[in-house]
């Protein structure tokens, strides 16, 4: 599996307003508001062609937890579930 951390850190860094390279796996992201969580989730979903489950997102308290969860969902997707098409993705939101 390719290293997804830089991309996830970039997404979180953009939302938190900090450079991605200062984030570490233990960096807290618990200050994210719900709308910011949503922005991060949507960005990750688009970047990795996955679907994040809403109920899990409030529990992701560190940057590392986001990376781990995204990895888990990529693995779930590769485990047999077809990756959602852009059309499907659009249908979730619009």
């Amino acid at each position, binding site marked *: 599996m390719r290293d997804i951390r830089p991309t996830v850190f970039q997404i979180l860094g953009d939302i938190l307003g900090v450079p991605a390279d200062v984030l570490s796996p233990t960096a807290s992201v618990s200050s994210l508001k719900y*709308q910011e969580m*949503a922005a991060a*989730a*949507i960005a990750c979903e688009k970047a990795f062609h996955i679907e994040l489950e*809403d*109920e899990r*997102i*409030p*529990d992701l308290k560190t940057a590392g937890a986001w990376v781990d969860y995204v990895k888990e969902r990529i693995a779930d997707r590769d485990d047999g579930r077809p990756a959602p098409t852009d059309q499907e993705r659009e249908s979730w*939101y619009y």
Partner: protein
Amino acid sequence: MEPTIHPDHPAEQAHLTMILALIQQRLANAQADSEKQLAGLADTRRDEFTERQEPLLRNLWAAHRFEDLVHLSQEFQSAAEEEKDHESTLRQIAGLKKLARSPYFARIDLRFDEEEPDETVYIGRRSLWDDKKENLLIHDWRAPMASVFYRFGAGPAFYQAPMGKISCDLLLKRQYEIQGGRLIGFFDADTVIQDSFLRRLLAQNASAQMKSIVETIQKDQDVAIRDENHDLLMVQGAAGSGKTSIAMHRAAYLMYEGLKNPLKAHNILILSPNTVFEKYISGVLPELGESSVATSTLEQLLEDALGLPVQSRAERWEALCSPGPEAARRREALTFKSSRVFAVLLDRYAAALPRLLPYEDLCYAGKTLASRQEIRSWAMDHSSASPLGVRLHRLEMHLWERVHALRPARFDQLRMAAFRLGRGEEYARGCAIWESGVLARHMRRITRLNLPRLYSALLHDKALLARLGKGLDIPEGLSFDPVSGGPVPLEDASAMAYLRMKLSFSPTPGDIRQVVVDEAQDYGPLDYALLNQLFPKARFTVVGDVHQSLEREAGLSLYTQISQALNRPTAALLELNKSFRCTREILNFSLQFLPDVSIQSLNRSGAMPQLLPNSQLQEEIAACQAQGYQSIALITKTRRDAERWQQVLSLPMMGRNAALGDVFLVPLSLSKGLEFDAVLLLDCDEKHYGAPEDRRLLYVACTRALHRLALFAEGAFAPLVKAAADLAGSAEKP
């Protein structure tokens, strides 16, 4: 044993020379093989990387071909196999080097049939075949035939071979001392000489790590080591009787490849009292040529099971020794919380919980996702064989499936609402995340069992305790008040882990088939019931001494309780009443603290234990050093006491990383299971050892000494100590 000029000496010397030559030849071959393998391995790695793997790796992401991945994996596998072969050769070299130092330690001559020639069997730490692999030149000490050496004197003998019982006559039983490949001496052993050989070995100084005892295993020890008939083998052994050695040699025996179903290192778990002890025993199996097995403490197992920090046994001991009523209350609660009665109470609680949990409706998107009746019926589904925790987990999965099915429609609603507010997609998704987060928290309150809360609820609800405790003797004032974020008291952690196993059966992962429990008296019946749940398929070896229990009174009935709790199809209890550690004088003195206990000593003689004032402590330390003792332990009752003495004496404190060398302070709880050349027991006054139950502590502390024992006090000695000294004939010096 003086070097002996025996009529067989030239023949024995010639035999040793022949064996050593063979070992040297094998060693040279193995070293040559190793060099070849190493060179081959380097070539393989270079070739594979430059010619095959590197281009593959470079193009891997671009290629995305499954065949490439398979090919690459095969390339890596071939290198890994070569590496494995090389490691095996290195192990062979290490084994041969050890063998060259002392190829064998015993010989038995056996007659199976009058008409057949007698068979001469040399016994060593590992076996050695002749070049044609037809004859064993040295038999592994674990081989069935070798048991004749440990169990019989000259005359009729037998051993259990895979094909059944084999009878023979033991014609000769000879023991050798071979050091650095040199034959120092040998003697033809009968029991008396064996004792003198043993005494000489035991007169040596203690070492920082426990050593193997293959040369001196006694008959009853051998019976315990080789037992394969029982799923639960319990060994009650006096202090210094070699219980721990038996446990370690038994582990090595169970890994012997000559057995029908030998165990691998990962099949064995040794449960030891603390990490200092773990370090002490860590060298035995490698010395016997086996891989180290996993060791753990109960605390570590509990932390893994609960995911919470757990108080160590040493910390609990400190708490139990604190002055004030709290320690007495805790001691009383500890006895109950580690009892079988408490396990029964927890069983009843686990069975009653589905009726006791507070259920409520679960709503999502303004609709009832599951009614409290539905949730309750899931929890109370007695037709399911799964425990409550598993049933609730399944319910949670089921409810999320319902949520996920409703989610697209719900998201449409949220998006429309966001649109009306002039907000976009992110706002709607944020609302969905918030809503799902609230639902998840709510659902978890229902479907996840909060063990500390459930456990606390049981202990603090008097009405519930009275209802569930019908027919049970439940003491007043039970509580569970851990410091927030601090470690869970050990006895509560055991009980919580037991409850957890009852509520969501989840045995320890891995393939543990033999659990060895050392210092068995330190675990209560509830701990054993927990071990039974954690290792349902394992056989158990349990070694201990009920007279060495620090925290609570234990008797031989403990073994009945262990047998009930572990509930194995076959169980046996062996008793070892001979002590090999202390001198006769030290053992006699120590036994004055336990008047009802009888232990045989090996009759090794030494100085009388002494009662000395604190003013002579430095002098006694110097005297011990002058004797050349390598480990001089100043034992205190608690760590607090040890720290106080550390301020005065500036001596190191024994811990996981401190070697057992020279002079050091050690709290009693950490000294259990260990042995030292000299023991200087501090604070032997009434304040520290004034209670009747302190007899056991004094017994444990005194029996740590191999050669020399002195007890110190400032002012008057505790009456218990005075009385023991009077009875043993030890003088108190002014």
